[in-house]
């Protein structure tokens, strides 16, 4: 049996001592898990190691940690692969997840962060009207859209990996927002608009996700929380036209309108249009928008002073040759009755040669 070296970050906040590293050698088959390695070290060498686990089969979501810097379920990571990633002679480094306080060693306080944020999005069904006499009946296909967000096992890996939350602990975060989509997308829920408006207006809500893909990368169940956040935004702006104070609506409108008009991005207009719900005039005249523009003046002046932006470039943007073709694509796609979304999680990959593989389920109701 090969021998693996584990290097664990140890910390007991109650001890008054700073964090430290402990190293352990464990003999295990390569396909056994990092979790098994930690438990072996605990059982044979050091009973004081703190690790939370239960099912050991990537179902309960208890054992998310950072392995060689990347958040993952310890039970779902083969120790041989982890050693390979660590590189020749280097130990497998295991640390607690980021963004949550450490209770002890590898155990973080999920209540203080993860569960609190999940509570924030009202994670239960809010149906409209009187309940039906018997159960709610929904067509199976109308639930398919939310199966991806329902696959979440609440392990918190995405919360630990979230780079926006690292800079802003108040951000609602990927797990809770994915949970929010689970209800926004549920045909039985009657509070879609209210939920979306609430998340869009929260200064640390829907529009604080930076598209960094960290949550997509680490999720052991392919929930792709960031994609659920994009779906929430699509619903909020496209379906409900919710104009929010964070400029989320304005930014999307501004960007889309500029590409429709010019084909490439006219950056100088992006800011004023974003502050004016997509409108250049409104962005330069409405008191709130003007205030935000003034806040951004130093940036504009820096751009001009450095010589990277000329006054001409700030005012004028050339249209692509053949821009009418780009405009036509916008017109044609916007005119379609269904907004097409191919979710590879649902339709699967490798459908390439099969006729009719793109199922109806890929279509969102608009």
């Amino acid at each position, binding site marked *: 049996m090969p021998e693996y070296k584990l290097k664990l970050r140890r910390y007991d906040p109650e001890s008054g001592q700073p964090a430290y590293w402990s190293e352990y050698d464990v003999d295990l088959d390569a396909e056994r898990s990092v979790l098994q390695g930690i438990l072996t070290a605990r059982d044979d060498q050091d009973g004081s190691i703190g690790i939370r686990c239960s099912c050991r089969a990537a179902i309960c979501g208890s054992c998310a940690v950072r392995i060689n810097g990347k958040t993952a379920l310890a039970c779902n990571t083969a120790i041989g692969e982890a050693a390979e990633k660590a590189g020749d002679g280097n130990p497998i480094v295991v640390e607690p997840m980021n963004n949550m306080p450490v209770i002890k060693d590898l155990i973080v306080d999920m209540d203080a962060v993860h569960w609190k944020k999940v509570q924030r999005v009202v994670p239960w069904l809010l149906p409209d009207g009187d309940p039906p006499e018997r159960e709610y009946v929904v067509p199976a296909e109308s639930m398919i859209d939310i199966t991806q967000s329902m696959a979440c096992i609440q392990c918190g890996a995405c919360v630990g990996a979230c780079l*926006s939350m*690292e*800079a*802003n602990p108040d951000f609602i975060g990927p797990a809770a927002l994915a949970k929010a989509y689970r209800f926004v997308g549920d045909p039985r829920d009657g509070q879609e608009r209210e939920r979306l408006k609430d998340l869009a207006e929260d200064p*640390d809500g829907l*529009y*604080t*996700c*930076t*598209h*960094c*893909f*960290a949550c*997509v*990368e680490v999720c052991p169940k392919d929930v792709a929380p960031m994609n659920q956040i*994009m779906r929430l*935004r*699509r619903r909020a702006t496209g379906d409900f036209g919710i104009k929010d104070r*964070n*400029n989320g609506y*304005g*930014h*999307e409108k501004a*960007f*889309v309108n500029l*590409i429709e008009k010019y*084909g*490439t*991005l006219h*950056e100088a207009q992006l*800011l004023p249009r*974003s502050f004016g719900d997509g409108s250049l005039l409104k962005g330069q005249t409405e008191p709130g928008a003007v205030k935000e523009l003034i806040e951004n003046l*130093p*940036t504009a002046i*820096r*751009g001009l002073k*450095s*010589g*990277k932006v000329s006054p001409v470039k700030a005012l004028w*943007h050339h249209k692509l*040759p*053949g821009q009418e*073709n*780009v405009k036509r*694509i916008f017109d044609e*796609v*916007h005119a379609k009755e269904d*907004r*097409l*979304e*191919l979710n*590879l999680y649902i*339709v699967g*990959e490798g*459908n*390439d040669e*099969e006729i*009719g*593989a*793109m199922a109806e389920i890929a279509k969102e109701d608009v």
Partner: protein
Amino acid sequence: MKLAYWPGCVSRGFTPELHGSMNLVAPKLDLELVELDRANCCGAGVIAEHNQELVDTLNARTFAMAQKVEGAVGMMNICSTCQGAQSEAQERLDADGDYRDVVNSNLAAEQLAYQKHAETDWWNKNFLWLLVEEIGLDKLRSKVVRPLEGLRIAPFYGCYIVRPTKRLGYADHPERDQYLEYVIDALGAEPVEYAGARKCCGFPIITMNRATSLRQAGRHLADAIDAGADCLVTPCPLCHLNLDLQQPAAAKFVERDLDVPVLHLPQMVGLALGLEPKALGMNKHVVKTKDVQRKVAQLAAA
């Protein structure tokens, strides 16, 4: 090597020094760039958030134009965000023939169609990937006339080029998240290890949550400075906007001085290939690059 070339929007907008330096570096590396001057914005994640079919059609249009360039082995971009947004569209287009047909039908009026190919036959690669995988580090080393010895350079990748690994070809090219270090080393400089290299610059939310956005940029810059970096280098012009253009504002959000220059990838390569800083647009940065320029001048003298 002949390539269809998609420079992106920002490289010709607020970071014109990027497009300019790429044009100077290309002939030095025997790259013949055919600029796709009718191609459109990749959507930068924003149009994807608005309408997926629309963004996939826009990117399929760019791919179709690139595939029409006679004798080109593939398409090159110089923006991590373009790479990520285009790879996302390409993943969906390649995964499902019916979907591809729908998207191509949106392009029929222009007599364009995206053709699925094996990666060996056609690809879309960021300049960084191209440097390592197509040109090769040995060849790059052989072209260096001014080794950047003594320069400590902190790599900053941009999210869209490092995640998600499954979509971005890491199965076949597992070291793509090490390439900046490899290139820095091949040019004779020293790569700086620090926390922020593969984190988010915060740019996408600059209009929506300025404090969070600039705290992100500020922290990574501060980490790079504390690790002893003379400058940073990035293959992403959007990261450059937050790290350079916004750096004085970011300093306020992390409550400390920053003042560390940020180079575009082709600028760094150009310096080692003997091009002059001014020609590479290094005087068009918000954070002055004169210390880097002085070090490079000393190298030339020695």
